[in-house]
C-alpha cells in the first residue's frame, strides 16, 4: 500500500512537471530566487558560503549537487513537503510567503531535471 502511494505521488509529480509551462518554470525560478536562493544558491567566487548549499555540500560529499537547482533527483512532492514542513534547521514557509500557486511553480522548477 505504501509503495502504491509513493508511486501515485511520483506519477502525479511527473504529471505536474509535464504540465509546467515555460511561464510556470520562469515564475518558479523567480520564487526560488526570492525565497530559497539566499540559502540555496550555488557557491561561487562571491558566494563563498551560504547555509543550505554549504551544509548540503558537506552532507553529500560530491555524490549529489549541493545546489538545489542542479539536482536531478528532486520531485515536486518532495519540494512541497520541505517547504511546508521544513527540515532540520530550515523552517517551513507560510502561504502568505509562498502561496500554493507559487509552490506549484517552485516545485515544477526544482523538479524540471528529474530523471525517471
Amino acid at each position, binding site marked *: 500500500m505504501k509503495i502504491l502511494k509513493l508511486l501515485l505521488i511520483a506519477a502525479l509529480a511527473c504529471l505536474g512537471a509535464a504540465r509546467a509551462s515555460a511561464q510556470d518554470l520562469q515564475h518558479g525560478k523567480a520564487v526560488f530566487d526570492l525565497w530559497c536562493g539566499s*540559502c540555496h544558491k550555488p557557491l561561487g567566487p562571491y558566494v563563498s558560503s551560504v547555509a543550505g548549499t554549504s551544509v548540503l555540500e558537506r552532507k553529500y560529499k560530491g555524490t549529489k549537487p549541493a545546489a538545489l537547482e542542479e539536482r536531478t533527483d528532486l520531485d515536486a512532492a518532495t519540494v512541497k513537503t520541505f517547504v511546508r514542513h521544513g527540515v532540520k534547521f530550515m523552517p517551513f514557509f507560510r*502561504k502568505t510567503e509562498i502561496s500554493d500557486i507559487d509552490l506549484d511553480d517552485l516545485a515544477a522548477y526544482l523538479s524540471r531535471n528529474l530523471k525517471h
Partner: protein
Amino acid sequence: MRVPTGVTSADFSAALEKFSSAIGKQWVFTSDEDVDLYRDAYSVYKGEKEEYLASAAVAPDTVEQVQAIVRIANQHKIPLFPFSTGRNLGYGGSAPSYSGCVVVDLKRMNRVVEIHEKLHYAVVEAGCSFFDLYRVLQSKGIKLYPSVPAPGWGSPVGNSLEHGTGTPARDNFKNHCGMEVVLANGELLRTGMGAMPNAETWQTYHYGYGPYIDGMFSQSNFGIVTKMGFNLFHEPELTRSLTVTSGNYDDLDQIVGLSEYLEAIGVIPANARVFSPLMSSREPEVVTLIRSAGGGSAGQWNQLSQDKNRPVYTLQTEIRGAPKVVDAQIETVKERFGAIPGVTVTDGKSWRAPLDLDKIDEPDKQTFGIPTLWRFYTDLAENKDPDWSGHVWFSPNIPQTGESLRKANRVFQEGCDKVGIYWGWSGGICFFPKSYTLLHAFQSGGDVETDRKTREGFAHVVRIAAENGWSEYRTAPAFYDLIMDVFSFNNHSLRRFHETIKDAVDPNGILSPGRFGIWPKHMRKDRA
C-alpha cells in the same frame, strides 16, 4: 478547529465569519494544515502541550483591514497576536505568545510607502522585509541602504520593535522616526510629527510635541504598528576593515578599554567585536582548561596560544565614510592599539564606491546594509552540529569592560557546568554603546528531552545573570515572564506600570496577552 480559551465556539465562528467579510475568506486560515504553518519552528515546547499554538490566522492587506480585525476581536473578546514577517527564529517566529490567539499575519502589508532620497529615509509597512526594501531601492537605482540585521528576511518594523539591531545603525529602534499604530480599540494613531495632519517632518523630527511615546509600542502589546519611518544609509565612499590581535590573556582590559574610548571619541564608529578564537574553540585541550578550577591561568592560555599559533583575543571592526577621514581613523587605531606591547593591527578588506554589488561576498554583504541569510551558515555550519533543529538565543547585555566580559564568561561557565551545560567563552558584540551583548545558542525544537534541558539551562543562566545585575535584551516567548520577573525593583513597579497602561489602552486584553510579560487583568489573577 481550535478555539481560544474562554471563547465559545459560537462566538469564535461568528468572529471568523466577520474576519472573512472584512478581509476576504481566502485570507482567513482555519484548517490545521494552514494554522500549523504558524508554529514556532524553533519552539522549546515543540510537540508538547505547553507549545504556543494559534487558533486561526488572518492576513490583512491594509491598515483599514487591521482596524476591522481589531474591532471584531473586541466584540467577541478574541485574543490576537500580530507579527510582521514572523521570521525572528530563535525569538519566537510567527507563533503567538499565548495559545489560542488568532495570529494577525502582516506579511501581505509589504509596501515601501515612501522613499525620500534627499533626506535618505523610507516609510515601510509592517510586513516589508529588509529584502523587500532593498529590492525596491535597487530597482529604482537608489544608492541608499537599510540597516540590516544578520538575517534579512525580518522586517524593519518587527526587528526594531523587538529592539533588534542592524548594520550600520546598530540600534534599529533608535534608527526609526515616526510610526503609525492601530490601537486596541481600532483607532489609528500617528506618533511624533505624524500627529500633525500633512506634517512635512514626520520622518525627520522624532519628538513631535508632548511625551515621546514610540517606546511604548516596542516590546509590548499596546497596539499594532502598521508603518514606521527609518533612516537609510548612503553608499560609503570608502570602507576598510581591520583586526586587532593579541596573544596575551591579560590584554583584555586594555583592548576593551581602548575600543570603548576610540568609539567614544568617534574614531571607531562601527560595531567593534571582541572575540577569542582560542577560548571559544571546542577543542579538547581548550575545553579542559576552561573547565579547570579558575578557568586557566594567564600563563596557561598564553602558552596554548603560542602552541596553536592562535590569538587569545581579536577585535574586529569596519570603518566607513569619506576616504581621507577613514584613512586617518585607521591610522589612529593602528597607532593606539600598536602601543600595547605584543598587539598587532592587520588591515582587512577594503571597498570603494561605487560598489560592485555582484562582487561582494556573502559574508561581507551585511556590512553595507545588503540583506542576506548568511548568518544561518555561521549558526549551522561553523559552530554546531548540522542536525540541530533550532535554537533559542540567550543574549544578555553586560557593561563594555574587559573585567565584565571576563567575569561574565567565568560565572556563566561555572554556573552552566553545574547543570551539565558547556558555556565556553562568548565574545562581546557591541550592539549598544557601552554594552556588550553575549550570544549563546541553546538547542531547541528537536526532541522533548533536549527541549527540557534547554528550558532548565536557560532559566539557570537567567538567574545567574540577574544575580550579577545583567539581563537579556530580548527573548523567546517561553521566557517572557521569566525575564520580566527579574525586573523586580520596588515590588515590580515597572511591571505594574505596564499593567496599568495595558488595562487603560486594551481593557479587553485582546492584543498579544503575555507578550514580554505584560498580561491583561483577567489573565493575571494567578499572580495576585
